[in-house]
């Protein structure tokens, strides 16, 4: 396997020609000019620590370009996965939202739909993401703060009140308790008499990146992976329009990685899920087409675009060559993009609108399938209605006024873009090889290797900012001494109290004997690894067993995860 990666690395190396043209120009034109104008050469680098030259020439185009580029809709999909791209269908404007009580969130979702949003994306609060109910002592002060709180099916019913689940697709950013929230969504559809065949959406359910970056876990990896396997098998059979995994680099990047690390670790996770599907007896062409990806779009414009293009090329190549996929749909890397939260500054927040715009442009030029644009006030708090509107309008302006989406992959063939795409691809292959040497991505995560790579990159960048080698406008340059605070969204404790009261009422009202019965059955089923747990979890959910009650069965059987030491 290692040999395959080495072969790919060699292939890319060999596709680069000598930079005769550049060298000649540098010697005859650039150097004399620099000397005359007393310009001291300095190194330019991107986020991935790659050297960036001041000029790229025809020599930088790989010599096998016709093969590795392909046209849109053709293998290896470097230029885009659909033949007509945004002319056929614009990217989905999907704003990640959720805060306070389910009712607050229901109101926000309807507001966004009214303003032209075309897909829903739910953000959950911290207790929900870790599988705790709102009335757990540890949840105090956190209910509804970073997203909406869901402690039982009753909360899901309120979030989607008067929203037709067969009409709009929903994405849920949930990982550790993904199977439970998915079960809630399915049961909700059943209760609304919506056929499971007609609902569509995505559940993130990418647990590997939780251990790598977002750190929202409950059990050790093996337990979560089993639940993902069960979801995968259940939805493949029963919910044909459900995307059961969104392999995410977003959080890896936010945790401090470079663009290359984001790309490499995310795709390595993706390969792991492919292996897992194959091992569980599924045909790769049955499940691979329903995998999707989720990337970050950060501030280094060209690097980001190249990253998206390299991602498509690597995924297609490896799925075809290494895994033997036959269906082109298996090879197409579909992805959602969110602009970078890390690049938003607390200082001079209106500047964030500009950052988000540039990042959104990179995502569009990179061929994203859906896009979330951050609001300018998100370094402070969850966004206000007004701030969210500006973020959504940013996408609408880019889509309908600027013409940047009129042409497919408009940067294709650019000397710099093609060279950068190939170099990023090469760096990713190097990481794959490294990870294989460590015994695969799971071992690399358990040993803390991946986490340490990211922490080191993040620290290096921070030092660059501290030493003014890297500029952040408003933070280490052009600082305003007398900044005034902006209006932000406040989530009062009323939300928490209301949720806690609601849960207490629910526990009094529901049939507690039935709840215990379904939980007991789930416990028993969980002990047998060959059983698919989805129907059992759906039974619990149907009886209004709470998120924590269901999560605790897994805690009993699998224990809780302890993170490795990375320093």
């Amino acid at each position, binding site marked *: 396997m290692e040999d395959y990666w080495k072969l790919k690395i060699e292939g890319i190396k060999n596709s680069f020609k000598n930079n005769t043209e550049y060298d000649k120009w540098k010697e005859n034109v650039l150097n004399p000019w620099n000397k005359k104008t007393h310009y001291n050469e300095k190194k330019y680098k991107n986020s991935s620590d790659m050297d960036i030259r001041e000029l790229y020439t025809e020599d930088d185009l790989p010599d096998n370009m016709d093969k590795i580029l392909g046209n849109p809709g053709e293998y290896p999909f470097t230029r885009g996965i659909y033949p007509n791209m945004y002319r056929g269908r614009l990217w989905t404007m999907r704003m990640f939202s959720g805060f306070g009580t389910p009712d607050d969130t229901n109101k926000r979702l309807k507001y966004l739909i009214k303003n032209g949003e075309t897909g829903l994306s739910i953000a959950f609060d911290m207790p929900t993401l870790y599988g705790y109910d709102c009335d757990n002592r540890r949840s105090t002060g956190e209910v509804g703060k970073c997203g909406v709180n869901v402690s039982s099916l009753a909360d899901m019913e309120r979030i989607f009140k008067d929203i037709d689940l067969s009409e709009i697709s929903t994405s849920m950013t949930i990982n550790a308790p993904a199977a439970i929230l998915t079960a809630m969504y399915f049961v909700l559809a059943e209760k609304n008499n919506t056929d499971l065949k007609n609902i569509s959406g995505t559940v993130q359910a990418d647990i590997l990146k939780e251990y790598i970056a977002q750190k929202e876990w409950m059990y*050790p990896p093996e337990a979560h992976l089993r639940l993902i396997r069960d979801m995968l098998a259940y939805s493949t059979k029963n919910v044909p329009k459900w995307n059961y995994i969104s392999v995410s680099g977003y959080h890896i990047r936010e945790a401090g990685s470079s663009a290359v690390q984001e790309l490499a670790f995310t795709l390595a996770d993706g390969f792991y899920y492919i292996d897992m599907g194959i091992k569980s007896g599924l045909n790769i062409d049955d499940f691979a087409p329903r995998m999707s990806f989720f990337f970050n779009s950060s501030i280094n414009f060209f690097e980001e675009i190249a990253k998206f293009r390299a991602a498509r090329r690597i995924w297609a190549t490896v799925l075809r060559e290494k895994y033997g996929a036959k269906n082109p749909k298996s090879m197409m890397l579909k992805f959602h993009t969110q602009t970078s939260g890390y690049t938003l500054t607390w200082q001079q927040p209106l500047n964030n609108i500009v950052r988000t715009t540039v990042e959104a442009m990179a995502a569009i030029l990179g061929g994203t399938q859906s896009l979330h644009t951050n609001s300018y006030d998100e370094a402070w708090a969850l966004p206000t209605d007004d701030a969210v509107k500006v973020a959504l309008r940013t996408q609408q302006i880019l889509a309908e006024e600027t013409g940047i989406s009129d042409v497919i992959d408009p940067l294709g063939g650019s000397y710099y873009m093609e060279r950068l795409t190939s170099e990023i691809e090469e760096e990713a292959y190097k990481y794959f090889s490294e990870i294989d040497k460590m*015994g695969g991505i799971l071992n690399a995560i358990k040993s803390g290797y991946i986490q340490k790579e990211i922490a080191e990159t993040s620290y290096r960048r921070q030092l660059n900012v501290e030493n003014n080698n890297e500029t952040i406008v408003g933070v280490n340059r052009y600082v305003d001494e007398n900044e005034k605070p902006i209006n932000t969204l406040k989530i009062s404790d009323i939300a928490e109290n209301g949720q806690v009261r609601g849960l207490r009422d629910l526990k009094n009202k529901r049939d507690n004997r039935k709840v215990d019965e379904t939980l007991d059955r789930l416990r028993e089923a969980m002990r047998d690894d060959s059983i698919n747990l989805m129907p059992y979890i759906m039974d619990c959910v149907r009886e209004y067993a709470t998120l924590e009650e269901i999560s605790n069965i897994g805690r009993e059987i699998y224990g*809780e995860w*302890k*993170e*490795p*030491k990375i*320093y």
Partner: protein
Amino acid sequence: MNIDNLIEGILNGDNRSIARAISLVENSDPVSRERIIKSIYSAGNAKVIGITGPPGVGKSTIIGNIAPMLSDYGKVSILAVDPASPFSGGSIMGNRIRMQKSLSRKGIFMRSTSNRLYNGGLSEYSWDIVKILEASGSDFIILETVGSGQSDIDIMNIADITCVILAPGLGDEIQALKSGIMEIGDVFIVNKIDREGSYIAIKDIRETLNLSNKIKTPVIGINSIDIENYDKFLDYIVNWNKKNYREKYVRKLRQIVLEEIYNKYSYYIDNMDYTEDTLKRDPYTTAEIIIDSMNKIIDKSTYK
């Protein structure tokens, strides 16, 4: 709180007193250190369990698992030594991360300490800290070394039982075989036996031990995920006889005396009046002359 209160606190097993006394011993002037150690020296009787091995083999995880089990047999305390950065002298001590939950449940005292660039796998005052933990009523003291592998040999001077942890697949077993840590182990633990290559690792270690006349030294394969074979490991620790006390005492005494001599005489040597004659003479001869003059002082005194 003064030092007398602190000493009383240590003897009563009060965590805050123990913790503060350790800080004073590590950070303070020799006067406080000597006062504390002299007062608590004969108190307590603990078995000291050394845990050593290369980085990444799962030492902290093993301690996190074995410490709560051990606490069914008596009071357990843990001292974990971390390496200091050679550039800044600072350190990041992350050993608690994997143990915290189980320690809290069982009320186990744990302390992290930086080696402050002291060689040998422990910190300069590890022995003194162990004494404090012993006086606080610990029955078992687990002592985790820095884990740089080859040079972690000080542990054998302090521990009653030294456990060398290895894991298959990282190439560490080969390193270990070559280096000194094969010599110091009383028990060898091969962690992660669910991994490929563990059988070969165990076999290699066994053979190397046999070749160095350590046929009776146990080699135990364990798995930290499902706690496989931990009972065997626990058995060895609980039933292991304490080391020859005299041997350990003499070693420590030797170290302290040498340090005292060094402290006393280094100043004298640095500030000696060096005549032209001395400077012309080779340093070996001068050294002999100085030692001779010291011997005369020692001969006159009456040590018993």
